[in-house]
């Protein structure tokens, strides 16, 4: 891997920096109807919108929603420091990055801090861990909360010593005066009350003096994961634990007509068959016993026909009628030179799945009227609220504790299996119940990423400049997160079923299907429509980057067509239409590292370029790729990639590289190879042979990531930022290799065969 970091010194003055570090989360303002003109901030990403009171609007990141310092940092009288985040580790390494931020501003070695992630019984409520928000929301909160706690402790020590606090030094939780007197954090915490609201301004460390932030601290979770230690919810064993397996309906809305429980109850180890409406499951002492019983139970159950699925051949055409909400997200007009050339194109994307390697799993224990659930959900608080409604229990009687699972890349079965576990636990009072879905359940009951259509036309003037841009997209929901019990699949199957909350479009600037639907390029005339379908032919929800994968693919491959029509170099054409200097920097850096303009290519090889700033407000990514094509088979390999990334102030360089490398490879798999198989009867992708993903033989020989650090600038989420640009660069490279403009994903295979 490349280790060439580019440091571009951006002079950001101290006072501005303080505000910038706190500003990454501000999303939109709305007026409350019926209330006197009171501007209220609304944080709207996935999940339910969160309203921010006036008192906390000026605070950094998630301090807006959790303003008390002691909800983030606990220090006991012995000096033990515990730092809480309401976010979770999804396999991105963000736990380590957040720890680094807290360690930096608490002036402590990371190893001295006990760092805990989301737990409704202990942590701040930060909603979902999604949308590349963690480093911006929780990171900014921890940076500021840690700095304020350090400042308060030092002020208290100074007061006790009778000296000014700015002559004190602090290292590893020991505050020292120049005369040699010292005080530990444990001693100082007795002199100050940390149960107080954060202040809008923090005594932040000068970035030039950072010695933890900006270093590639090795991830804290890796040694245990590579030596077989208990690392995942799947690995938890509890005394007296029983194993459950569920039987899912063969198709959406099928109702259970009959289940032959008598035979199953005779099987070895079987403790109970649980049936509630169409929610069917078996509990056994041993895990393999549960699996065998589940197979018998499934084979002996009879279901109604359920709902027919759409014909895959007409899915894209159907979107035109299903999309009943038409939302204009950009409409801009200015005078330009006359258009001399107009181009248009239409693009399609098929349903795809998250494809977690480990099927979703949860443990639950119902004891003394309280329910505890161990879950790899991305949002323990929303899950708790959904479970409370489903179980008719008070929220404070339910505790959801996050434990890592297999990578999810979005809304997979994590919440659903947690609901299964809770339903089983209620039937098995006092006994911990472990439920894991089987492979075919993870595949066929996923919340898929929706099929999409995009259409664009744009005109060039005589000088080769874009003078107008019209873009529209069609999609069903990318956000069916848990906002009520009905969003949990098991709750829909109960005898008294819960109905899912209606699908609603996500709003700009983050967007859902329309994420990155508005190009960052400077376009004098621009019209962009988000056509939203509130109905879902297949269950869909959030998958890494939501609509950005498709929108950036469409925009960036169309930019190449326009550049070709303008007779311009592809990189120069992008720079010509880009005013954001940080975007220009990543575009130039990726081009330079790749050796742009295009080097000579071997036969059946091609190179491509693309750029996007994720959501137009997170990390900037530009990427150049080389692909090879086998004309006889249509096989495509991403051979090599050079990516340039600006994620603001870098916390952990190797962590960002790891996420970008992984994103490039996963996006290559989506873009080139993946599509969900189904027919009108049922989902047909039920295992890895019916849903192939990229394997070692198709791995690029190198993916080099070049980082631009912006000391003092806001942290920008990067984990999802490479999905769209990779797709765009692959489409462009395939055109370069074959002369064919491929506009329908997946790109590899039949359409390239010659």
């Amino acid at each position, binding site marked *: *891997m490349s280790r060439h970091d580019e440091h571009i010194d951006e002079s950001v003055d101290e006072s501005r920096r303080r505000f910038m570090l706190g500003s990454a989360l501000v999303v939109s303002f709305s007026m409350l109807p019926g209330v006197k003109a009171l501007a209220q901030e609304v944080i709207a990403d996935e999940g339910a919108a969160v309203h921010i009171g006036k008192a906390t609007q000026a605070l950094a990141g998630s301090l807006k929603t959790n303003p008390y310092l002691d909800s983030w940092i606990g220090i006991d009288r012995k000096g033990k420091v515990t730092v809480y985040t309401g976010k979770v580790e*999804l*396999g*991105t*390494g963000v736990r380590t990055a957040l720890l680094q931020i807290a360690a930096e501003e608490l002036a402590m070695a990371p190893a001295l801090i006990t760092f805990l992630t989301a737990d409704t019984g202990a942590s701040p409520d930060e909603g979902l861990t999604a949308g590349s928000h963690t480093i911006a929301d929780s990171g900014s909160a921890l940076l500021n909360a840690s700095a304020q706690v350090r400042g308060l402790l030092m002020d208290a020590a100074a007061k006790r010593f009778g000296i000014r606090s700015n002559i004190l030094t602090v290292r590893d939780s020991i505050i020292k005066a120049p005369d040699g007197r010292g005080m530990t954090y444990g001693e100082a915490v007795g002199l100050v009350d940390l149960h107080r609201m954060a202040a809008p301004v923090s005594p932040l460390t000068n970035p030039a003096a950072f010695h933890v932030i900006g270093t590639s601290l*090795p*991830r804290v*979770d890796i*040694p245990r*994961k*590579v*030596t*077989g*230690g208990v*690392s*995942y919810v*799947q*690995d938890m*064993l509890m005394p007296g634990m029983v194993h459950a397996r569920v039987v899912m309906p063969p198709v959406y809305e099928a109702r259970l007509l009959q289940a032959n429980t008598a035979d199953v109850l005779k099987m070895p180890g079987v403790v109970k068959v649980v049936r509630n409406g169409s929610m069917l499951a078996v509990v056994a002492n*041993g*895990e*393999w*016993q549960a699996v065998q019983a589940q197979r018998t139970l499934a084979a002996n159950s009879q279901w109604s026909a359920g709902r027919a699925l759409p014909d895959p051949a007409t899915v894209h055409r159907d979107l035109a009628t299903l999309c009943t909400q038409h939302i204009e997200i950009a409409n801009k007009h200015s005078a330009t030179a006359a258009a001399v050339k107009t181009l248009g194109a239409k693009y399609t994307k098929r349903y795809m799945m998250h494809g*977690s*390697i*480990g099927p979703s799993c949860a443990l639950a224990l119902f004891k003394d009227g309280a329910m505890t659930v161990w879950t790899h959900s991305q949002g323990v608080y929303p899950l708790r609220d959904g479970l409370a409604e489903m179980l008719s229990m008070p929220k404070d009687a339910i505790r959801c504790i996050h434990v890592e*699972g*297999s*990578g999810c890349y979005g809304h997979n079965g994590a919440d659903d299996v947690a609901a299964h576990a809770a339903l089983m636990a209620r039937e098995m009072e006092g006994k911990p119940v472990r439920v*894991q879905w089987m*492979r075919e359940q993870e595949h066929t009951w996923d919340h898929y990423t929706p099929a999409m259509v995009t259409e664009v036309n744009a005109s060039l003037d005589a000088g080769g400049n874009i003078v107008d841009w019209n873009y529209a997209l069609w999609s069903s929901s990318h956000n069916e997160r848990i906002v009520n019990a009905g969003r949990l699949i098991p709750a829909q199957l109960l005898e008294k079923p819960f109905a899912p909350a209606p699908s609603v479009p996500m709003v700009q600037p983050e967007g859902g299907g329309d994420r990155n639907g508005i190009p960052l390029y400077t376009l004098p005339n621009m019209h962009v429509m988000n056509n939203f379908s509130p109905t879902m032919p297949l269950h869909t929800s959030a998958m890494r980057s939501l609509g950005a994968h498709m929108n950036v693919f469409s925009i960036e491959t169309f930019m190449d067509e326009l550049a070709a029509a303008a007779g311009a170099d592809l990189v120069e054409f992008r720079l010509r239409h880009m005013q954001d200097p940080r975007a220009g920097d990543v575009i130039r850096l990726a081009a330079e590292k790749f050796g742009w303009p295009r080097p000579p290519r071997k036969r059946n090889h091609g190179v491509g370029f693309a750029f996007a700033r994720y959501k137009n407000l997170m990390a900037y990514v530009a990427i150049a790729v080389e692909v*090879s094509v*086998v004309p006889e088979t249509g*096989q*495509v*390999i991403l*051979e090599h990639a050079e990516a340039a990334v600006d994620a603001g102030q870098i916390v952990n360089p*190797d962590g960002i590289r*790891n996420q970008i*490398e*992984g*994103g490039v*490879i*996963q996006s290559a*798999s989506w873009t*080139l190879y993946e599509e969900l198989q189904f027919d009108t009867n049922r989902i047909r992708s039920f295992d*890895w*042979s019916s849903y*192939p*993903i*990229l*394997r*070692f*033989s*198709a*791995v690029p*020989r*190198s993916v080099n990531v070049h980082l631009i650090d912006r000391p003092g600038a806001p942290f920008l989420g990067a984990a999802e930022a490479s999905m769209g640009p990779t797709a765009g660069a692959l489409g462009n490279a395939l055109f370069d290799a074959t002369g064919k403009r491929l506009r329908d994903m997946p790109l*590899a*295979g039949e359409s390239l065969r010659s």
Partner: protein
Amino acid sequence: MINLTVNGVQHALDIDPSTPLLYALRNDLQLHGAKFGCGLGQCGACTVIVDGAAAFSCLIPVGSIGKKPVRTIEGLGTIEHPGPLQKAFIEHQAVQCGYCIAGMIMRAQALLDRDPRPTERELIEHMEPNLCRCGTHTRILAAIREVAHLQAADAPRENPPLAASHGGAQ
């Protein structure tokens, strides 16, 4: 009683002989490294070494193993004293979510036990059965190459992609 030798230690287990090895390792011996991924031998998350060869522990009935020695990731080293591959995976930070990684390491170990100096092509072909969804492949290969004394692969492919690939044309 099923007798099973795992990481050099003999165990007598009172379980159904049809139980796949994976469940015996995870639940009866509390060795959690090998993971349930598919139960179909399609992803490799459950990979262990049986009698010197990489094997899908989700498919092998525990009663069929007999005296063949079983090796799991717990047998390669500990968190305090990681083995060479484990150390290389830590050094390369060759993990994202990590759910597939124990299987990856065990498959690589089986190759290196047989041939400590494989070629690049042998390495890729050998690793082909194991899936990673996070896209950690380049780091996984870099970590294995280090232990296998293989040069980095940043050179053009000499051969067309493997015919057996599931990652290409379908």
